[in-house]
């Protein structure tokens, strides 16, 4: 049964548990949970759509590389430029590499990558699946004995979950390069001294928490985009709504997850 049929049933009876909006919110949570459970079921059960996964990896990962690299580079430069005055005030501009490495590896790289991916990939998934849904292509696939969930949803979610950590690596590296260029330009710090100072303050936990975060963010973006697109309705307007909601929900969830993961990591640290 589709989520909207449950909502319709709810509006027909007009008996709300709390209020219509709040009840709908909890129904959405229930539906998303069922969607995630279905994803895991379909992901582990054969047949596996490897070729489609690779294609989606290309679309999600490789095609986002330029945008994400550029964003990472600019982030590195801008963050270094903005941090310098504060540190220079008390003569600690030599701490810039340490500060930047902590900021980029712990927070900025996963967060910026996730936000860019949510904007680019999440909206793309919502729009693509939404248009397939409203044009009944998904129904047609079901009729032709192809599992649309496995082919469309599972492949995309796996692709973005796997590709986002890789994109985070690139963002972190390019962001550090951007930061190095700015520090070198202003303080004439050598490449070796910069990276020695940068890696002096971060730990393995920072790198692994960053990887774990990016996996969670990727999964969230994939699920949000696919869920909104897979259950889109209402013609072309519905497609737009699905794409928009996919981005908004994915971004919002990324921030919520960031906060929760930081709490966990700080508890371990």
């Amino acid at each position, binding site marked *: 049964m589709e989520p909207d049929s449950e909502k319709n049933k709810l509006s027909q009876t007009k008996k709300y548990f709390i209020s219509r909006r709040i009840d709908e919110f909890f129904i959405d949570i229930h539906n998303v949970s069922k969607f995630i459970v279905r994803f895991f079921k379909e992901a582990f059960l054969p047949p596996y759509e490897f070729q489609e996964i*690779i*294609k989606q*990896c*290309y679309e999600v*990962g*490789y095609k986002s*590389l330029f945008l994400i690299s550029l964003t990472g580079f600019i982030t590195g430069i801008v963050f270094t430029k903005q941090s310098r005055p504060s540190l220079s005030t008390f003569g600690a501009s030599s701490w810039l590499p340490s500060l930047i490495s902590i900021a980029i590896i712990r927070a900025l790289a996963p967060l910026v990558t996730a936000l860019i991916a949510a904007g680019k990939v999440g909206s793309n998934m919502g729009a693509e699946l939404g248009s397939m849904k409203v044009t009944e292509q998904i129904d047609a696939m079901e009729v032709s004995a192809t599992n649309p969930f496995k082919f469309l949803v599972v492949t995309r979610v796996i692709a973005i979950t*796997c*590709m986002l*950590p*890789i*994109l985070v*690596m*690139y963002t*972190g*590296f390019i962001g550090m390069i951007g930061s190095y260029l700015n520090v070198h330009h202003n303080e004439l710090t050598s490449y070796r001294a910069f*990276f*020695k100072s940068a*890696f*002096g303050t*971060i*730990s*393995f936990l920072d*790198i692994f928490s960053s*990887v774990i975060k990016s996996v969670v963010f990727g999964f969230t973006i994939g699920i949000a985009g696919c869920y909104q697109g897979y259950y889109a309705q209402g013609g072309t307007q519905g497609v737009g709504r699905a794409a928009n909601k996919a981005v908004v929900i994915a971004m919002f969830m990324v921030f919520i997850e960031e906060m929760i993961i930081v709490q966990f990591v700080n508890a371990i640290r």
Partner: protein
Amino acid sequence: MKTIKTNHPVTVGIFVFLGLVILVIAVFTLGNQKKTFVKAFAVNAVFNDVGGLQEGNNVWFSGVKVGIVKKVSFYANFQVLVTMNIEKTAAAHIHKDAKAKIGSDGLIGNKIVIIYGGSVATAPVAKDDFLTVEKALSTEDMLVTLQANNKNLLEITNSFKSITKKIDSGSGAIATLLNDASLSNKLKVTMNNLQATTANFEAASLNSRNVISSLQTFTAKLNTPGSLSNELVSDTTVFNNLRSTAIKLKESADTAFQFLDNLKTVSENLNRKDNAVGVILNDTAVASSLKNTIKTLELSSQKLNEDLEAAQHNFLLKGYFKKAGKR
């Protein structure tokens, strides 16, 4: 045979591979920096206060990172046991009598363990050894000293304030100096005198420099081989002669002294009246008597001369004198 329809798998493969390479490089760089893959062994130190030292903080020896803090745990009642992982390569330079203290990386940086000292005579540190601990100057200690300094500064400024008040109110020597024009003129004159004195001193020092220079020249001449002065100073034969001469001089002086002593005794005796010469010299009565005697003697000798003259013309003795005149 399988054929690749598109380039997607290759592109994605390269993309993923490069991403993983970045991850691996980061992990290895970090591992290298944190000495994770370096052979190390544990060394302990027991502190009373670690001041916020944490696991993973650096351990320095002579300013070089030689390991990390592995574990921080309580020891006995209130002490803290710090277990450090020290690199095996650095262990050869750290001796058993080396000391450990808690420091910080910069003024407000992370806490670190600083190992220092140790004598070469002692064996290098070994696994599970305990290092001697020395209490380091903490930030709180520095703040306490700074607070004491602040109090002193406050006292100084208060004193200065009261001094300036006194000066401002016109009491005291400095106020007089500042306000009295004649005094300042006198001071100016004094300063001029002082300047002149200094100039004189300078001239004197110049003269003394010249004197020293002359002395140097003189001593240089003294040191010139073959010169009299040099031989006097350096020739042992001359010196021995001089010494024997001096001894003889001393003997002569002694003799002269004895002679003078005798002369003194004689003169003393002359001053006394218990001897003939003394009586003659000192007794006026005897002197006048002697004078009279001499006068009488003189008269007598005159008369005797006359008598003898008369005798020469006597016929009895005339023949004798004629013969004596012919001889």
